[in-house]
């Protein structure tokens, strides 16, 4: 009953999307005056029905209704309720339904709240949004029905894989989906504005909150994903340049560029065509990312339920949407008014440089991710592109980008002088020199790149606080705080990355119980290895005592075996201190009674994710600041 209701709601939502598209198209014609008023309500209704459909799916999961194929395949009556809930989107069909629902709800939000933008442009945006939704509705209804029944219902579900019952794994995907959907909305705005030839500051202000929101979610999703991989995979690494990771990084890079470009358009009326192009690129990256992940076309250490047929469908959608948008762009871009001019040395100039560098990094990552695919099609050779390539190609660009990010906010709009910039940046530069000397004194053997990173991080951290310098905190707009915090977050993250690269100490030994080894400032003793058991696993647990100076504490890494499905995993034990993390892994015993131990001391590694959280916080502050403002933002911002 519930499943049928859910399916019915989904059909209705799809029908409404179709109606929304037709009404929108009709309303844009010269004689379409009467239908204009109907588009917004239809969008709201579509959002409600889509949400209803998804809520019903959640209900089915919570009740573990095994007569529904999706629940039987992915859930289990014994699953903790949190994972039953998360199970609703932890599969292909459910996640597609989530995507469609969030997109529809976003469209409803635009329909309800967007009042500043010209009505025709809003209608065109909603029509574009409906068109995007339709493709996914079609996919769901004809090829991935989440409400399909199973007759007879099996006595129990299939989905009790304990490896998948992990909070990170459960909540990481929706975070990214919200990001992708926000970008889809921004894309809809861009298409709408192109259609109605309304590419100006008002359009940018309407689009900006969506870009910000999407960007915040992507930042959070990537940060969380990185930390999850770090503690779960047991290799001590925090980024592997895996195609699936890149699939979330590329939209983030494009969204960051778009975020800065749309701000220029909103406040200065410049970079119009650029903003449009970036919106298309950002959307393309999110769809390409989704495609790469689901189609199985690239091998990755992530195991998704891959299916070339799904990949083909998404590819077709991708072709339609992006191809359509690019055709529209090619036809209409020349009608977009010129933006206001600016000098090379100016805030706009710095933002252009920022965008160029981001685009270059995006290009490098895209080439690295797709090159194995292209090569295999062309020559049949198999090739893998990993960290060495990405670090070599993107690393220097990223450092240049961060330097630009440090200097940009300190420049005035429209026209500034290099001399003035140097004056404002003198203090951060001094700090950089001091940091560099200090590090060379304390750690003379440090490699060039991490040294550069740490130095740059120090200078950038100081520079990012520049716009707040000597301002009355209460009179400073919230979005200025947001900018400062976000840029500070990048500097913090960079410091963590550089520190991890430069100062990590590793010890890999085979030790007998009773033996002590050293790693960094710690002395670690393997006291014993004991068998332990959990609810659905057994493990060999290493009992370690770590000491440094006076204090000592215990650590218990495990080599764990699950029974159903039969799997072996390594559960690292990580101890977090103020100045770093002690990361311990236990391996196999050998015939002589020795146990493999891999220990890392990673100074300040937590800064990487702390920085990421700060970046997201900065975004949130900015978003609140923009939404609260209501009226157009102030044009000029001054500083000491």
């Amino acid at each position, binding site marked *: 009953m519930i499943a049928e209701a859910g399916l019915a709601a989904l059909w209705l939502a799809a029908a409404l999307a179709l109606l929304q598209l037709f009404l929108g198209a009709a309303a844009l014609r010269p004689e379409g005056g009467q239908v204009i008023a109907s588009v917004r309500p239809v969008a709201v209704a579509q959002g409600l029905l889509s949400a209803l459909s998804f809520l019903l799916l959640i209900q089915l999961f919570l009740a573990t209704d095994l007569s529904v194929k999706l629940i039987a395949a992915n859930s289990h009556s014994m699953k903790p309720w949190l994972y039953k809930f998360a199970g609703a989107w932890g599969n292909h069909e459910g996640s597609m339904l989530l995507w469609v629902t969030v997109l529809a709800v976003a469209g409803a939000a635009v329909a309800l709240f967007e009042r500043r933008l010209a009505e025709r442009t809003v209608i065109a945006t909603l029509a574009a949004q409906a068109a995007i939704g339709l493709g996914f509705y079609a996919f769901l209804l004809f090829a991935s029905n989440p409400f399909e029944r199973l007759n007879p219902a099996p006595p129990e579900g299939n989905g009790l894989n304990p490896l998948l019952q992990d909070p990170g794994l459960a909540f990481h995907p929706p975070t990214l989906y919200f990001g992708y959907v926000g970008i889809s909305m921004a894309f809809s705005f861009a298409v709408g504005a192109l259609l109605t030839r309304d590419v100006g500051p008002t359009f940018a202000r309407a689009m900006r909150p969506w870009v910000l929101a999407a960007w915040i979610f992507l930042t959070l999703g990537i940060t969380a994903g990185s930390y999850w991989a770090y503690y779960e995979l047991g290799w001590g690494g925090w980024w592997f340049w895996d195609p699936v990771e890149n699939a979330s990084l590329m939209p983030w890079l494009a969204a960051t560029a778009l975020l800065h470009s749309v701000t220029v358009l909103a406040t200065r009326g410049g970079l119009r065509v650029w903003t449009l192009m970036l919106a298309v690129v950002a959307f393309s990256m999110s769809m390409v990312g989704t495609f790469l992940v689901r189609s199985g076309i690239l091998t990755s250490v992530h195991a998704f339920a891959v299916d070339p047929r799904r990949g083909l469908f998404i590819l077709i959608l991708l072709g339609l949407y992006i191809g359509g948008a690019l055709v529209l762009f090619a036809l209409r871009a020349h009608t977009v008014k010129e933006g206001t001019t600016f000098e090379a040395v100016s805030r706009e100039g710095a933002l252009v440089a920022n965008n160029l560098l981001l685009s270059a990094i995006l290009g490098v990552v895209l080439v690295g991710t797709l090159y194995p695919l292209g090569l295999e099609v062309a020559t049949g050779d198999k*090739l893998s592109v990993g960290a060495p390539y990405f670090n070599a190609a993107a690393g220097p660009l990223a450092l240049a980008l961060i330097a630009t990010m440090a200097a940009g906010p300190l420049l005035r709009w429209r026209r500034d002088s290099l001399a003035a910039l140097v004056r404002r940046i003198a203090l951060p530069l001094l700090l950089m020199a001091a940091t560099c000397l200090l590090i060379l004194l304390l750690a003379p053997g440090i490699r060039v790149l991490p040294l550069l990173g740490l130095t740059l991080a120090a200078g950038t951290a100081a520079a990012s606080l520049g716009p707040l310098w000597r301002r009355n905190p209460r009179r400073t707009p919230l979005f200025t705080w947001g900018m400062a915090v976000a840029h500070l977050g990048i500097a913090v993250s960079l410091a963590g990355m550089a520190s991890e690269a430069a100062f990590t100490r590793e010890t890999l030994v085979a030790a007998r119980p009773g033996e002590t080894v050293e790693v960094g400032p710690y002395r670690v003793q393997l006291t014993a290895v004991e068998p332990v058991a959990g609810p659905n696993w057994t493990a060999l647990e290493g009992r370690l005592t770590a000491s440094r100076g006076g204090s000592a504490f215990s650590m218990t890494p495990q080599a764990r075996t699950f029974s159903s499905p039969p799997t072996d995993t390594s559960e690292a034990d990580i101890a977090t201190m103020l100045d770093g993390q002690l990361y311990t892994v236990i391996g196999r015993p050998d015939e002589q009674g020795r146990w493999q131990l891999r220990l890392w001391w990673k100074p300040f590694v937590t800064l990487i994710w702390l920085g990421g959280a700060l970046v997201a916080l900065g975004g949130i502050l900015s978003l609140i600041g923009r939404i609260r403002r209501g009226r157009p933002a102030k044009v000029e911002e001054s500083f000491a």
Partner: protein
Amino acid sequence: MKAKHQRLTLLLLALAAVLGAVLLAMSALRDQASYFYAPADVVRKGLPLDKPVRIGGMVEEGSVRHAGDGVTIEFVVGDETDATIPVRYRGIVPDLFKEGSGVVAEGRFQPGGLFVATEILAKHDENYMPPKLAGERHKAESLQ
């Protein structure tokens, strides 16, 4: 007009950035991308020295040796031909690593033919198949 001039400048800058990125990427790929070698490929194409390389194949039965330090392991990788690659790895091997099973390793060849692995690849999922072997292990037909 200054504005038109500006737009053209920006466009050219964008093109330059994209071109520059692609050139940078190609140059980095040449040096840093790692080609995949099965044992038969080593025989056919010769030892790839001075480059990071990925090898894959089956761990030959009875070939695994543990070194005295307890953390170094040596084994031999073979494929359906008679070619083999001797491998040495220092580290904790993933649990999916065993004799008679597939393996993919990243590292470099030494002049004598020994492959020194820096990473043994495995997934945290029991269904992982090394890419080349996936083509072999379960020959699936194409989409049509």
